[in-house]
């Protein structure tokens, strides 16, 4: 890494560290849930390190417990992960200049938090001109910093949860602490009316359709929120012209 790349990587790592409490509460909860499920400690650690998708892991546990067929569990994993399909569209647009292998690696490590941080900093992909002026690909290194920190905090707390699960009682309300910690991440994103309406829509749809199989409520919520955000942005733009 060149000094400038290093600086961006460290920036990314530090920036993601602001979300460390939230990441670690969720992964601690995920780790504990895995350890208290039918998985052995080794299987739980392997799942944490390799699958690296908390919501898919949590959705899989009750299915594993009832002995659901593998294809049902995998279909559920994919459905829970559908939001990442949308993120991958953004990633592809932002990093199309990288080789396929590097993009795949980048995609694998892109979680909710790292995508969010990247998009917040750079809403648009680099233009040809900006790309030519940035031979060191500094945006990529900031992204790698987000991802490295996200992976590190997630795995540390997840594996801690797996190993210490028997010592942590169920009634601490840790899962709820994870929810509260997420509020702090979401709050600053609600900085304009269209975002707030998109959020209210997503929340309502996710709760109303919670009973659907495969955690389909997540992608339904994302879909409707996108539509609401689009309509509101369009009408506010028209309003500005007239």
């Amino acid at each position, binding site marked *: 890494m060149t000094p400038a790349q290093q600086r961006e990587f460290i920036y990314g790592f530090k920036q993601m560290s602001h979300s460390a409490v939230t990441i670690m509460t969720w992964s601690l909860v995920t780790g504990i849930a895995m350890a208290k499920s039918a998985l052995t400690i080794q299987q739980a650690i392997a799942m944490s390190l*390799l699958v690296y998708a908390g919501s898919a*892991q949590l959705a899989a546990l009750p299915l594993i417990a009832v002995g659901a067929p593998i294809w049902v569990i995998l279909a559920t994993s994919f459905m829970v992960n559908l939001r990442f399909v949308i993120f991958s569209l953004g990633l592809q647009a932002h990093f199309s200049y990288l080789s396929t292998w590097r993009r795949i690696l980048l995609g694998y490590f892109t979680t909710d938090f790292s995508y969010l941080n990247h998009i917040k900093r750079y809403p648009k992909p680099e233009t040809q001109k900006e790309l030519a002026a940035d031979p060191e690909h500094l945006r990529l290194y900031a992204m790698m910093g987000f991802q490295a920190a996200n992976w590190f905090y997630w795995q540390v707390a997840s594996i801690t949860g797996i190993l210490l699960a028997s010592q942590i009682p169920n009634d601490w309300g840790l899962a709820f602490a994870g929810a509260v910690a997420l509020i702090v991440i979401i*709050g600053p994103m609600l900085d304009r009316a269209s975002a707030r309406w998109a959020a209210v829509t*997503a929340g309502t749809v996710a709760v109303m359709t919670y009973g659907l199989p495969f955690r389909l409520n997540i992608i339904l919520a994302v879909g409707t929120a996108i539509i609401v955000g689009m309509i509101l942005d369009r009408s506010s733009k028209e309003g500005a012209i007239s």
Partner: protein
Amino acid sequence: MNDSSMRMTYLIIGMVAMTFVARCFFIFLGNRIKISEWALETIRYAPLAALIAILAPEIFLPVSASSVAEFNLRFPNIWGGIAALIAFYFTRKMIPTLVIGMGVFTAARFLL
């Protein structure tokens, strides 16, 4: 390896594949598809909506709930969630939000 640990090994490999398929979906398609500015603009709220979609049921529905029919106001998460939202609105900081949210949540668990 016995049958059940074989099964779990296949499952973990399969789930790793699902992580790759989802997170790299459009990356696999590569430059064959042109992603328009409009498409990027429309998915702007996707990360926000995804986090909310994961969060909202945690606050408004019991852990074991299978549908929205199980919503009721005796559920402590709702009160803790509202308290945390108010605390965040005024302080914009993690620690007070966590302390107040968890405090009200715990109180509601004993009182309701």
